Structures are given as C-alpha cells and as structure tokens.
C-alpha cells in the first residue's frame, strides 16, 4: 500500500516505511542524500517544532508533527534546545518553503539539510498518527530515492559498463524495490536500528564537565541530554551550575560541594543508564550526603528507579504541549509540555516515594515526592520550550529546598 498526497510526480520521491510494512510516499526535504531510521513518534504541539527538533530526548527517534503546517516561522538561533537537531528524521504534511517571522534565519529544509537529517513532506500525518495510536510506537525509516548509499549509482555504472543502457524509470523502480527490501529487513531489529541502548544518552550528554557560573546556589546538574531552557531557567534563578556527564559517579559530584542536585531530561529507556541510577541511589541511601534533588523526565524516572521502582514503556508515549497533570496536593490541573515514552509503574513504588502528580487523562504517574528527603521529580517539562509555562513554579520549590538546607546547616 503506497500513500502519497499531493506529491507531484516531478523530482525524486521519498518514502516512509514502517515496521508493519506500511509505505507512505512523499516529498523529500532537509537532507536528501541519505536515508535514516528510528522509532516513529508523534508530537501534538501546534507550535515549537524547532524546540522539538533540538530536544536531545528525541535522540533515536523520527518525529512526526500532527499539526500539518510546519516551518511557518522558520528556524532561529534563539529557540534551539541544543546545538543541533537531535531527531533522526522529520515527517510533516507540509514543510513551509517561505517562512515568515522577524526572527527567522533559515528554512526548516535548509536547517535539516545542514545537519544531514532527512525529512519527508506530503504525508497524511493524521493517518500515520492513528496508526501509531493503534499499533503503538513503530520503527520506521525515511528512504530517500535520491540517496546513493545503497549503491544505486553503482548499479547504473555497472549497467553502463556491461554495455547496457540505463533506463531511469526501470532503474528507479529497481532501486526503490531493493531499498524497501533492505529497510524492511533492517526494521525488524531494534539492535540494527540502534533505537534503544546506552548509546542514546551517551550521544547527547556533555562529554566533559563544565561550569556556568552564578551567584546563587551551587547546583550539580547531571546531564542526560539537557534542554537549554532548563539551564536558562536555573541560571535565571542565579544558580551556579556545574554540569556533569551522565556517567559521573556520586563521589565526584559530592566533591564539588553542591547544594542541590538536578537530574535532567534525556532520551530512551531509564534502565539503559544504570550508572546514573547508582549515582542517584547514593544520594538517596546516605552513601553520599543527602541533597535537595529535582528530576525532570528521564531524571524523574532515574530517581524512581534509584529508589527501587520500575519503569515501563507506554504504548505510544506522551508528546505534546497539552497534557493535563493534576497536582494531587491542591487538586489543581496544569497543562504541561511532555515528551516521554516510558512511565513509572505505580505498583512498584517504594513507600518513601509518593505520587504527587498524576496525568488527568490516563492516570499515569507524573510526579513523585520523597517523604523524608527534599527530593521530588516530574515526568513532564516545567521548563516548557515548547509548551505552556504554567509549571515554572516547580523550579522555585527546588530553590526553596536548597535555602532550607542552608538554613538547617547554619542552625
């Protein structure tokens, strides 16, 4: 079954192949010189595609936006959540060729091309979303017809050398068929696609520790692929930020004499970063001197795992800017920005951790709180970018916890 909407016959096509065999035909944009594969997920935000593209938590994934008109306001240097786009591919209904916004510096097409990320447009993204909803997250590949990596050009050369004529249409069809075959085989295996595993966090964490100086509290930031806006917000609160690579042991962190520990967002399965779980555990079980801890997203999951809970993979995850989360203490619901494929299994929570926030739609755990220690974490993104700014108050609580600790120390 081939899908293709409003894709004019001219020029090479691109394909989106899913592990269930579904094939969509579309138009290539961004990087046209190669194909790429990953886990296909959808994001329901209507704005914020640049923040999504640059969010390191999307490492290993091909993202589709459910909103059809993407790229309208271009790409600007101020809205990046990391130094480069992190997705493996990007699927849209329509990629805007002439963006309009005073801050726009380049088009989406140009940006993705620059970083070698293939995009595909002209896709019935709603049908794709419905497929993901029904099937669960799928592996998929964006296959560029123009790509040479599968030796298509070589094929033509060989034909010529054999004295044959190159029939472009026939050759294209052959090449398409062989590419499809190749990728169908590839998509069968998680390992081959590298969509899970320790390498994901490793690819987005900082290679070495660095400091963002500030006059306030000394915060150790464990970077699993941190979003720029988290750093911005902590900085705005005057924090002195000491950013550590994901595999930094607890002693090393402790030796920097932090007043608080922040656990960042990041890609993939929390069990793929066991060393980080160890690190957090040390701060929970007294191996290291206890600190106020605040975890977001993967940081939240690692906190829970360090305390003994388990995580499980959601059918298709939560990705968007409209997810309602209830603060169980006040009964108030906040609209949150989310991006996660895993969640904490409430049944496995140790008694020290209580659920503080819950998803108002499916009831999944959205926030945890330690009953003795100043440790709390949320599954969603209070730093927004993209998404609602409603939950920024959670950062204040982290500051308050550090203040309280200092007061206690002084007392």
């Amino acid at each position, binding site marked *: 079954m081939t*899908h293709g909407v409003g894709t*004019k016959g001219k020029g090479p096509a691109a394909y989106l192949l899913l592990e269930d065999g579904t094939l969509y035909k579309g138009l290539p944009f961004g990087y046209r010189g190669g194909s790429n594969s990953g886990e296909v997920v959808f994001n*329901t935000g209507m704005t*914020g595609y640049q923040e999504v593209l640059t969010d390191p938590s999307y490492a290993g994934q091909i993202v589709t936006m459910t909103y059809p008109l993407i790229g309208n306001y271009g790409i600007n240097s101020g809205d990046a959540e990391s130094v480069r786009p992190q997705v493996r591919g990007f699927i849209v209904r329509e990629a805007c060729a*002439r963006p309009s916004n005073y801050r726009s510096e380049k088009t989406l097409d140009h940006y993705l091309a620059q970083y070698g990320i293939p995009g595909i447009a002209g896709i019935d993204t*709603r049908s794709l979303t419905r497929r993901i909803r029904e099937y669960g997250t799928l592996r998929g590949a964006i296959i560029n017809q123009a790509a040479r990596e599968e030796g298509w050009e070589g094929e033509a050369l060989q034909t010529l050398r054999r004295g044959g004529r190159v029939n472009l249409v026939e050759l294209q069809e052959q090449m398409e068929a062989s590419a499809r075959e190749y990728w169908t085989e590839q998509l069968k295996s998680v390992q081959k696609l590298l969509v899970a595993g320790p390498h994901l966090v490793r690819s987005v964490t900082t290679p070495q520790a660095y400091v963002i100086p500030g006059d306030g509290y000394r915060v150790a930031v464990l970077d699993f692929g941190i979003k720029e806006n988290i750093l911005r917000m902590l900085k705005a609160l005057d924090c002195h930020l000491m950013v550590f690579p994901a595999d930094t042991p607890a002693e090393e962190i402790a030796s920097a004499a932090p007043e608080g520990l922040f656990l960042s967002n990041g890609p993939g399965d929390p069990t793929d970063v066991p060393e980080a779980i160890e690190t957090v555990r040390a701060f929970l079980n007294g191996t290291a001197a206890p600190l106020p801890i605040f975890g977001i997203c993967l940081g939240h999951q690692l906190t829970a795992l360090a305390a003994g809970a388990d995580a499980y993979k959601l059918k298709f995850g939560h990705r968007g800017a*409209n997810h309602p989360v209830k603060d169980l203490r006040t009964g108030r619901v906040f609209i949150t920005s989310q991006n996660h494929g895993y969640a904490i299994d409430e049944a496995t929570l140790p008694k020290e951790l209580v659920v503080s926030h819950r998803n*108002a*739609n499916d009831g999944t755990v959205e926030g945890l709180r330690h009953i003795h220690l100043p440790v709390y974490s949320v599954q969603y993104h209070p730093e927004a970018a993209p998404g609602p700014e409603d939950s920024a108050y959670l950062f204040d609580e982290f500051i308050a916890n550090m203040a309280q600790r200092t007061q206690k120390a002084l007392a």
Partner: protein
Amino acid sequence: MPKDPTLKKVLVIGSGPIIIGQAAEFDYAGTQACKALKEEGLEVVLVNSNPATIMTDANIADHVYIEPLNVPSLTRIIDQERPDGLLPTLGGQTGLNLAVALSQAGVLEKYQVRLLGTSIEAIKKAEDRELFKQTMQDLNEPIPLSDIVSNLDQAVAFANKTGYPLIIRPAYTLGGTGGGIAHNETELLTICDMGLKKSMIGQVLLEQSVAGWKEIEYEVMRDANHNCITICNMENFDPVGIHTGDSIVVAPSQTLTDKEYQMLRTAALKIIRELKVEGGCNVQFALHPFKCEYIVIEVNPRVSRSSALASKATGYPIAKMAAKIAIGLTLDEITNPVTGKTTACFEPTLDYCVVKIPRWPFDKFVTADRTLTTQMKATGEVMAIDRTFEGALQKAVRSLETGVYGLRLPGAATWTDIEIENKLKKADDERLFAVAQAFRRDWSVREIHQISQIDPWFLVKIKGLVDFEAQLEKWPVDEEVLREAKVLGFSDYQIAKIANISTQLVREARKTYDILPTYKMVDTCAAEFEAATPYYYSTYEEEDEVRQTEGQKVIVLGSGPIRIGQGIEFDYCSVHAAWALRDCGVESIIINNNPETVSTDFDTADKLFFEPLALEDVLNIVEKEKPEGVVVQFGGQTAINLAAGLREHGVKILGTSLEGIDAAEDRKKFEALLKSLGIPQSEGKTATSAAEAKAIAEELGFPVLVRPSYVIGGRAMEVVENVKDLESYMETAVRISPKHPILVDKYIRGKEVEVDAISDGTDTLIPGIFEHIERAGVHSGDSMAVYPPQTLTTAERETIVDYTLRIAKALQVVGLLNIQYVVDNQGKVYVLEVNPRASRTVPILSKVTGVPMIKVAVQIMLGKSLAELGYGTGLWPETAYTIVKAPVFSFEKLTDVDISLGPEMKSTGEVMGVDFELSSALYKAMTGAGMKIPTSGTLLVSVAERDKEEVAGLIRDYADLGFKIIATQQTASALKRAGITVTTVNTADHSLQLLLDQIKDGAIQLVINTPTRGKVAGRPGFRIRRAASEYRVPCLTSLDTAGALLEAIRMIRDGNPPSYQAMGSYQDGNSAAWWDKLKELAG
C-alpha cells in the same frame, strides 16, 4: 468541587434579536448552556425575545419566556420565578449589560439572585475602560497609551499629546458600535461625538493606534479551583485596525513561534485569573510584527462570537463547559464529550487549518460604506476546515455564496492599479480578492505587504494559488495538476472556469484518476485519542475516517452564513429537521458551514459535515454516504438552489418535487398555474427597455412595483408612483436591457397576509395566518406582523385557506410552503408569491401554535400523510393570545444606508411580543425591538405627498395624547388644513442642520417620516432618518407602524403595565378546541 447544592433554579438571559455583532452564536451558546444545566438537574428559566431561536423551544428550558429583554421585564420575571442564580455570560453583550443593569437597580440583591460565572466586578474590570486600564497596569500587562474622555475637549487634548492615528472605542457597546479610527482632528471630533452618544455611560476610550500589528485572540477558560486552559488561539489575516468580526481569521495562529504563542497564552491566563471568571473568556492581543512586544486590546469575560468559532474550530463545546463551571463543577470533573474518556481539563490541539471569512451585507446595501474599520459590519460568517491553508481558504470563499468561486472576483480584472492599491491599503470586503488581483499583475509579496501590512505568510499562500491558476489554464485535466488543485481547494467548477472547459470534463477526469476527497474527524486531540463524535471535514489525503453506517439516512442541507433575508430561522428549521429524522429512526446528516449555529453543534445531527454548500461538495458527501435522499426545504434559498443540480446527478430530493419547486419559482409557469386555478395574481409584465417599462406601467396604472427579473430577497425592488419616479428608478437603481429585463407589476394597495402550510400533496394543514401591520409594499421580513389576524373578514380568511389548499395541491407540495397574499380594499385576495420551502415565520408559528411544523413536514417527506399523523386539512384552531413579530435593524452599524422600509429587506433579526391583548403584544414587540417608546414630547412629521391626507388623522391622535407636533413645510400645511396645531420647520440647508441638531440633542422624541424617493443620500428626508437612527430616536417610515405605536403608547398611558409570562402560561389560556386538537395528537 461538585455542583453547588444551594442552586436549584437558574435564570439564563438570551441575547435577543440578531443584529450586526450579535448573531446566531448566542443561540448556539444559550442552547448548549440550558441543556448542560438541565443535565445537572437544575430548573432552568430562560428569557429571550427572539422567537427564531432553538433556545426558546419548549423543551430547552423548564420555563421559556419570549419577552422583551429589559430591566422592568426581567425584574417581573425574577419576582415570579425566584431563581437562585443568574447566568449572564451566555447572552452576549446584551446579557452582560442586563446583568449589570439588574445589579445596579438592586434587583439581584433584593431577590437574592447570585450572579454565576462572572462577577459584576469582573464585568466592570473588563468593560469599564478606566478599570480595565487599572487592572492591566496592576497585572503589569501592556496596554496602549490611552485616556478615557467624556467630552470633546478632553479628546483633542489627548490627541495633541499622542498624535494620530487614534482609535476610539465607546464604553459598553457591542460590535464596537460608534467606534472608529481618526487620522486627524475632524475625524476625531465626528467619531467621538457619536461614540459618546452610543456609550451606556457616556465615555469613550482614546488610544494610541497599533494598526498594522498582528491581531491574535485567545479563548481561555477557568473554573473555581483556578484551573485555567486555553481552548484555541486565532490569528487574524487582517492586521489590527479591522474589527475581529470583520476580519478573516485563521486558527490556530500560523506565524507565531512557540515563544510568542506561550507569551500571549500566559498573559491570557493571567488576565482570566485576575478577573476570576468562572467560564469562558476572550482576550485579544496586538503583537508587534518585528519585536517581542504586545499589548492587550480587549477582554470579553463571557462567551462570544469568537468562542463559538473556537468551539467549532476545535470541537470543544465552550458554552456547555462554561455553564457547568458556572454552577460549581471544575474542569477536571467533566469528561471531554468529544472523546468520551479523557478529561475536559486539557487544551485542544488541531491537526488541520481553519479559516473564517465574514459575510457582509453590501450586496443588499449597495450605498453603504464598505470600508472595514473597528465597527463591525458583517451579518454572519463562514468557516472551512482543511489540512492546507489554501484548501480551507478556498472552501470558505465558496461557502460565502456570493457568486465568487476562488480568488477571482468578477470585475476585478477591470480595477485600475490605483483601485487595487486603495483596496489593499484601506480594506473593504474585497481586499482578499484585491491581493489576488495584485499578484495576477505581478506585484511582489513585499509590495503588497508594505501596502496592506498583511503577513507575508498569508500573501505567499495567495500568490501560490494565483500562480497555480496558470498551471490550470494549461493542463487542467492533467492527473498530477488536478490532484494538486484539489489539495489546494480548487473546485471542479472553478477549474473549469479558469481553463474555460466544462465542469463535467473536470469532474469526469477527476473520477477517472480516482481523485476523491477523504473525510477526517474534528476530535480536539489530533488523533491522539479515539473520538466518539461524528464531526467531519473533507481533504484530499489518503485515509478516510467516516464510519460507514447501515440503515436509512437523509441529508439535511443547512443555510450557510447569516445574511439579510436568510437568518437564524433556517438554522432552526435545519436543526428540527435533524431531530425529526432521529425521532423517526432515520440517520440525519447535516451539511453546513456556519460556525455560529446550533446545526453545526457536534451532537445535533447523527453526522455533521462542515463543508461548503456548493454542488460539488454536497455531491461528494452524497456519494460517500449514499443517503435515501436530500432535504432542501429547510436551508432557505441556499438549499433550494442546489435542488436542480442534485437531481441532475441522480440524487433524490425528498419532499416537493423539483417540478413543483420550479412551478412555484418560475414566473411564467407560476402565472400559468394560477390562471388555470382561477386564482388572481397581481398583474405584471416584463420590460426589456425603458420605453417598454413606461408603456406597461401606464397600461397597468400607477403605482407599480418594479424590480430586476432575477432577484433575491427583493433587492432593488421599489414601489413607483409616477412616470418621473419610474424614469429615475431606471436611471439609478437598475440597468435595463434585453439581457437584464425588469418586472413591472401592478401594485395593489391593501393588507398583506402570510400563510405557512404543510401539505402531503392531498391534504394541507395551515397552522396559522400572519397579518402584516404595514400595508403591502414593505418586505415581509421587515413588516411587523400579527397572529392571529386582526382585521380579516371570515370571507377573506376562507378565501385564503381555499387558495392555499388549492395551490398546495396543484404544486403537489410534500412538506412546507409559504404563500404571501395581498387583500385589497374590496376584500379581493391576490397571490404575491409562493415559496416551496420553510419560511422565516416557521419557527415562530411552530412555537405559537403548538404545531411542530418541521417535524410534521419531515414525517410527511418520509411517506406519512397528514391524516395518518392526526392532523386534518385546513386552518388549525387559533390561540387565545396574540403575538406580534417586529423586525430589528442594524442601521447604527451601517452608515449611508437609508432606513426607510420598502420592498427590499433590510432587517437583520426579529423579536416577538406575546400577550392576551393586542396592544400589550405590540408594546412588547416594540420595546423588545429596542424602541424607546415615547409617551410624551415632540413629534417630528414629514411625509410624502401621497400620505399627506391620510396622516392627519393619525397626527391628531398623537396631538390628543399631548405630543407637540412639528412638521416640515408641506406636511405642516396639510396638518394645519386639517386643524392641527403644528410648528413648521424649514429644511433648507441651515435650518435642516438645526433640526438635525435637535434630534441629536434629544429635543425630539419621535419621528414619522415617509420617504418620497429613497435612495438619494443627500436629501433632507434621508438625513433626518439617518440622524434619528444614529441618535436612537424612534423613526417610523410607515403610517401603519405609527398607528400601531399609538396603540402601545395609549396602553402605557392608561397605566396598565403588561404582565410577563412563560409560554406555557399563555397556552393555558387557549381554547378547548386547541387543547383537544393537541391532546388528540398526543394520544
């Protein structure tokens, strides 16, 4: 928080008649609210003066009052009903203003009625300019430099400080009445003067203009537990400077980065929190196009036109949720009715693009100023949904039904470059087409942006469409081009026009290539969750989501945008048709494109297709759904016009056959039919030249009724008294030629009578007869009308019934028909016209007579007979009470329009007055229509030559009541001759100005002016009428209306204030015959 247990009975205030700025959206909101309150077990009392609404149906509320919306009436009703709470946020500005007035009058306190949803304080903070400014300053939310002034000197002083342009907004008005933009001192003085008069509190706001900035709106909601959510944001295609109701609007915003989106979202939530609104709220922003800077333009702490649009654009039922929140529920306790599983406390996300285009009345008001400003002029709007902006835009244009397909406006090719530039700069209703025309002339995006300040994103899209036209010209039936064309929203007809080929060819090519639309669902959540609501739009993609259903289905065609001549009544009919089908066990499918309506609510029909009412779009749905047939009787002329095309494509039309429709609509066939039945019709002939017209007129004898041969709603129709006037009519109003003939009819002086009937082809039931107060010559939509008729003799009545039965039978009517008659002074009955469809008066007659007309008509269309249904043939028993229907106009919004009544319809809405006494019903209808009934004071009279004799008796009655009479020269002489004391006023230039000043200053309480020859804007009569309208002095342009008013004045002067009762109580007074009939049916 669960529902407040102390609330048992709630009063809901409706928004009254349809006027510019307040249309069907409040029937939609109010109906949803009443249903939601009843769902929660509350007793609901509803007051609304507009009988053409769904919300005033007996089953929507527990006690329905169709009574005037003012403080005295509501006070009486509150006293009778003793509600615990009052919900004012669903009745538009009318509801809000009334709530404030009731609170100020101490009524709410006296009867201990709690205001629900929004506090008086919040209303004031949002509506009172000074408090608003203070509130925004406290919140640190930016607003433009501004000042509140209450006189002209202050205004000038402020302008001297800030410079021009300045925006002027009166406090407490709706639709921006009396506002405008001043570019210099003269304009400032004119607009301010008007604004000060219009404001309920004599204040206007002057503010620094941010014209040219992006205009962005947010619809937000909040509950008592401080949960705040955004339902939708919207971006105006037209930058700040044009009222949002007159702007093309797109949802969601297209050119905002996430930072900008969230910045404004956060501000909107901050504001709703501060105002502590429990319900919906609309916040309008201006966003600087080149800087991270914004200002808050306006806050509406209530459900609005924008929230109706947002509800339809997202699928989220704002009004329903607002009502539930108002009685204490919190958002998270409510389930999202669209998904049926997730919470209502979330933010809808769209996976399509929505475009709204206003529908303006300039086709009816050719002399009106078409420039778009901060004062709204549109009567209605259309909305379209697609996965591309281009598709949504073109579908919306098609939905307007202005004869324009796509972006090619007929005549635009003849515009000069200067004209185009003017249209781009100073926007009018044709700006969208001017943009396209400019691109056709190779203007650049940059140039057009600089002139119009429209965001380049929109311009690039339009340029793309114009460029694509070139491809279509060359390769209209190429598969790839055609596929792309459909994605971009081009219709087959439009492609055929562009390529100069037949629609048939395009259609067949498309079908051969298998290029068919797919239908996607509006589900609030971009497919993240499975949705339960069958609300669809078309797009050209891969996957179709329509759930195929088995069993009998019928499509009901809606009536499209609200316009003059086709209003909310037809939505009422469509909704009832859907409900009737459901009751009969038939699946109902509605097609409509008006976001303001109940018919486009997701749970009205079994399936809703939000689509243009154009042949191709309807056929596509027919082919998808394969219904039993299509019902065209309930969607006004819009639906009737589609009948022939549908039949041509083999679609079954339910009800009256196409031949029957044609026989009624085709003048020649109809004439022949009446002749064969021996039923008299006013004589008339067709003229193709001025000479011929004169000859015909002389042969028939003056006065004659003249009009172009193909007209809708009586456009350019006039009663002409003599040869001179006929000549002038042919020079100014119409162009006569063999291709464009005019019709000349004998004008019969007499009373006009209107009949609505239901027929099964054999038997015909007449639920009631309406008698017009104004004599024939005033369009039936603009006439006051009385039921049951007051002056018809038994013989006249019998003749009317007899004619109706015979015409229905001859036309083989199956369903509804409407006939207008005129009865001359000798009691002879003539037929004026027959409409083989539901008419404007069906909703009101259904409510008043107790006959569920639409339901009966639907049952008949499905094969039942009147006899089987228990209705006999002939006239239904009359009620004990009398009702008066009065038209409501929006002249204050439309400058340069003559307010005089004539054969051309001008009203935008209507109200109903009901009582056991005619005088009380008249009084209620008039006050309900917003007339300040003067009981004493000065009466200015100026009548046409023909009325000079007749007017004397009437004026003597006014003089006897103590009115001081002043009159223009000739009228004054006539009155003096009749022995009436009168002061003569001069209408020469200077004196006229003095007279106008008197009107302005409130020295005149009533004007009676019958126009000689309408259309000339500079004439004294015209200026007097305009002045009266603008300064809200009642101005009657028909002696009959003046006579009716006299009745009402006498009634109040006699000291008998009317009582106000629920419809049920009036019905209790009905005759035994009426009740027997009703019981018979129930049994």
